[in-house]
């Protein structure tokens, strides 16, 4: 699978987005603001996660008309979300020609047992993960990019940090395993042994792992990049802030120059208030988006 030609172009596009910022947008006007600010891609959706969280109800794939409008408005890649396990939504998104599909826990899951068989699609998929087993399961289903789940719509970075650190720690652990330990380790984390072996031999995942779920400031972006994220998704953080265009530009700069703290400082100067954000412990357990998917 990892050497398949389709897979090369899928992971290839993910590689092209590295070091960049992918921004959630809900209309063509926001998409233009994101592109003008230097976004490498936009995620087209009807409601940003913070609104999905506050308004409740079933969250589904966006209206194709909205996605088309955004595709026409910008020249950068356009991504869109489908529900976990909802392969028919994914088929619709593929027919629209979106560049990347996010099988996302932000939307209400459609299947409580199975994720989508992503190898059947020509369009690449990104999926969320909280630990290495989940990451490798998604890759074995065909995901060409991973991202931390974090806690979408919270404006709170703590869960994304937890998930990025956990995956990184587990990758390091795998590189220290003896060959005889791999099968049992794979069984315990519920992932194919071939992918565990790949991680042992290469010291990294075969696809990039981006940060998502709670990024609201330039310093948040720098933090996630320093923890090993290869790029950054910003969902509610931009268009729930008081100055979307300036904040978008600032996060783009901080992601590129994440080790140059003068630039991160300068990018943060003069920004108005970030989104208010939520304390994770105040979110009822059954409303945590990160618990969706397995």
């Amino acid at each position: 699978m990892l050497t398949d030609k389709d897979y090369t172009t899928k992971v290839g596009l993910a590689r092209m987005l590295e070091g960049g910022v992918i921004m959630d947008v809900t209309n063509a006007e926001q998409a233009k603001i994101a592109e003008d600010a230097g976004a490498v891609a936009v995620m087209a959706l009807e409601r940003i996660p913070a609104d999905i969280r506050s308004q409740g109800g079933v969250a589904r794939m966006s209206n194709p008309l909205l996605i088309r409008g955004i595709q026409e408005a910008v020249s950068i890649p356009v991504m869109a979300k489908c529900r976990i396990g909802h392969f028919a939504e994914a088929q619709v998104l593929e027919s629209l020609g979106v560049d990347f599909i996010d099988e996302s826990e932000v939307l209400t899951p459609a299947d409580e047992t199975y994720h989508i068989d992503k190898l059947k699609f020509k369009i690449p998929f990104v999926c969320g993960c909280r630990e290495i087993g989940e990451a490798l399961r998604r890759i074995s289903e065909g995901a060409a990019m991973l991202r931390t789940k974090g806690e979408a719509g919270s404006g709170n970075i703590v869960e994304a940090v937890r998930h990025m650190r956990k995956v990184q720690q587990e990758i390091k652990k795998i590189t220290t395993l003896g060959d005889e330990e791999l099968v049992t380790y794979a069984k315990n984390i519920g992932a194919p042994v071939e992918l565990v072996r790949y991680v042992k031999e290469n010291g990294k995942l075969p696809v990039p792992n981006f940060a998502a779920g709670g990024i609201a400031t330039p310093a948040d972006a720098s933090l996630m990049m320093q923890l090993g994220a290869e790029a950054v998704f910003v969902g509610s953080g931009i268009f729930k802030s008081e100055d979307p265009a300036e904040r978008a530009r600032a996060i783009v700069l901080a992601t590129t120059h994440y080790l140059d703290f003068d630039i991160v400082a300068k990018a943060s100067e003069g920004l108005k208030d970030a989104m208010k954000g939520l304390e994770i412990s105040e979110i009822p357990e059954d409303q945590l988006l990160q618990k969706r998917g397995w």
Partner: protein
Amino acid sequence: MKIGVLALQGDFQRHLTRLGEIGVKGIAVRKPEALKDCQGLIIPGGESTTLVKLMKNIGLFEAIPEFNRRWPVFGTCAGAILVSREVNNHPVEPLGLMDIAVQRNAYGRQIDSFVEDVTVNLAGAPQRIEAVFIRAPRITRIGEGVEVLSRRNGDLIFVESERVLAATFHPELTANPLVHQYFVAKVRKTL
């Protein structure tokens, strides 16, 4: 000899890895100062709109043409757009290092991305290599002093001028080091 890789955004990591594999010291270039240590520069694939903004913000948009007066530059995919003189279909302001025109996203969206074997003419010797095209541009015009190294179905995909190399595909995504070795040889000639 050191070769810089523009590391603002995009697939710069795999170019750095490839340079290491062929025994060349690569430098991640995020600021104009980093160019002082380099004798060549690779501009990787990524998003050209993003790259232009980031280059302008940090002063590399002016520094790279200045660097190229002396040292070779190699642009792949989005990098090929940036080294061009003219972008046909999108308001991207290129660096203008080479007299070529390009069409951005010329083959369509991601669903139209593909991998194909192509023939490249390196130093007069035709060789087959695997080429990865991702939302790739197309070179629509070449000016004087620009030589064609490869075509695919009539489309220009790999061209060279005195101090610039441009490929619409991604040599860093395949295992074959030939294209990078060719650029390194070009850099060596200017030392």
